[in-house]
């Protein structure tokens, strides 16, 4: 069962991520791998998911910081593509994501005689994060309230309920799906529509649109 399972009403929360330098830096692939072995999982989370909430242009090619660095600073496009395709949402845990990262990097290192060095000013900077969660005092009493509420909620709220929830809840589901479950099978179809939304490869603005579209479509169909 999820922790903190929401029964009605659904309290909309908001969150913000704070980036904190760890002081750990890598200048080549070997150093990256060594740091990955010991780095806190919060750092892995930040470099995969944090981009959704911080000042960063959505890179159309590479979705996580490791892939971006390998592409732009080590100019290793092959490895960058392999790293970019990792969807952390499909792994059991961040530990598993980390293991996958290390394996892909090791495979690349196996085929490399001399590791390429990034410029000194261009090292990979490991960052960890703190997440601060706030109450918005907005609530949905029933799922039917969601379409009206969703267009006005912040991207931080989308991140909290759709992305952060999957890490926070024991059943790996987002908060919306957990809330629908508390109504039995009544909203199972809507839950499935939301389950189909991929939070990782989609910017938060789009996620908000997709979530709203799913709710609009579901309730419109149900009404007609």
């Amino acid at each position, binding site marked *: 069962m999820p922790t903190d399972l929401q029964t009605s009403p659904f309290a909309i929360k908001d969150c913000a991520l704070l980036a904190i330098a760890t002081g750990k830096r890598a200048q080549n692939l070997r150093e990256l791998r060594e740091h990955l072995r010991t780095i806190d999982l919060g750092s892995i989370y930040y470099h995969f998911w944090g981009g959704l909430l911080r000042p960063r242009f959505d890179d159309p090619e590479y979705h996580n910081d490791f892939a971006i660095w390998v592409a732009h600073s080590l100019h290793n496009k092959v490895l960058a593509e392999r790293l970019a395709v990792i969807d952390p949402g499909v792994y059991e845990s961040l530990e598993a994501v980390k293991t996958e990262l290390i394996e892909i990097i090791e495979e690349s290192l196996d085929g490399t005689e001399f590791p390429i060095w990034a410029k000194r000013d261009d090292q990979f900077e490991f960052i960890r994060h703190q997440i*601060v969660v706030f109450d918005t005092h907005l609530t949905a009493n029933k799922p039917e309230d969601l379409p009206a509420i969703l267009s006005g909620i912040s991207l931080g709220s989308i991140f909290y309920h759709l992305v952060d929830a999957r890490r926070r809840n024991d059943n790996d589901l987002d908060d919306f799906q957990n809330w629908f479950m508390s109504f039995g099978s009544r909203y199972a179809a809507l839950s499935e529509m939301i389950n189909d939304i991929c939070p990782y490869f989609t910017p938060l603005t789009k996620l908000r649109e997709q979530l709203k579209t799913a709710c609009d479509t579901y309730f419109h169909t149900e009404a007609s």
Partner: protein
Amino acid sequence: MTEKTLLDKYAEIAGSDVIAHLRQLARPLKGLRFVHINATRVGGGVAEILQKMVPLMQELGIDTRWEVIAGGSAFYQCTKGFHNAIQGNQVSLPESYLRAYEETNAKTAEELRSILLDADLVIVHDPQPAALIRHFPDRKGKWVWRCHVDASRPYRPVWKYLREFVSKYDASIFSISKFAQQLPHPAYIIPPSIDPLHEKNIPLPDQELQAVQTEFGIDPERPMILQVSRYDRFKDPFGVIRAFRMAKKFVPHLQLVLAGGGASDDPEGEEVLQEVRMAATDDPDIHVLLLPGDAFLTINALQRCADIVLQKSLKEGFGLTVTEAMWKNKPVIGGDTGGIRIQVVNYHTGFLVNTPEGAALRIQYLFNNPEVIGEIGEKAHEFVRENFLLTRQLREYLTLVCALLHGETERIEFG
């Protein structure tokens, strides 16, 4: 009609949702006392930001004060030396300067004792007031050191001296992660921002743009590229001139404006300016402008008149001139370095280049595809609106305060 509040004005630019978010973040902080301390109320980027940030925090219901540290000439010589040393210059500071620095901090600490002792949060900006903290061993609130300069490779002897003070803080803030130094407390990363209501960034009427073009002999009918920066070798003004000359073969009517200020009190800047003028001699289409430090409206107008803005730096801190240009819907061709990389994304908000040749190619590409200039400009503006306005920086400050006041755990929940 009631006058618009500052928050109303920012809501019009950044969006009402952004302001609602700020109000929400400020709610748990109401009743707390905050103090910002820096070295000046006017001039320089820190003062510019505080001029708006402090009243904004007050409007959000947070009791916020702004205090400054002031000293004599030895104090300023010393802190100028700190500034240069943090950025990596080898600086030798005589004992008398360090004494003046410590005495000025001690004197200011006494003057502000009651305010600082009771404050819930004290944000100390840059090294000038950094030593205040040693005079408050029994402080009640949290103290944060905000470093606005590139501290990625400080001159070690000076950093070692400053580190003694900085280490005592509860947290520090750096603009980008590579600027962060190892310290015994959390080093937060908060990028800087521009103020859309500052004279540098407000929309300007066409007459004002025309007046500036007339004043500097810029032909409004011909394409123009611009670089705004100090006359400093790291800003690569010579590379910009080379790029311009190469691009001119493809865009024959092109004009280049190099605009910078503050060179007169900087011996090296003066030297670079003279060399730039020499390099531009015999080409009436290169305009080398030396502007006073407060020529905000002129810079604003020049940025708005330009078709493309360059920031071809070889080394750069964050590069707020890039942010300013992007805010004015200009594609930026920037050096592939420092904070420019965070802002300029190839084919999206501009182009990153490594050589004058690269810059020339991008200039040619953009003038050959004028529709791309508009598309990139629009994306650039939106990118700044979402990420680099003062409201975003304030949001991060408020979040940081919430975090600091409620422990160091990875997750902090309110409400």
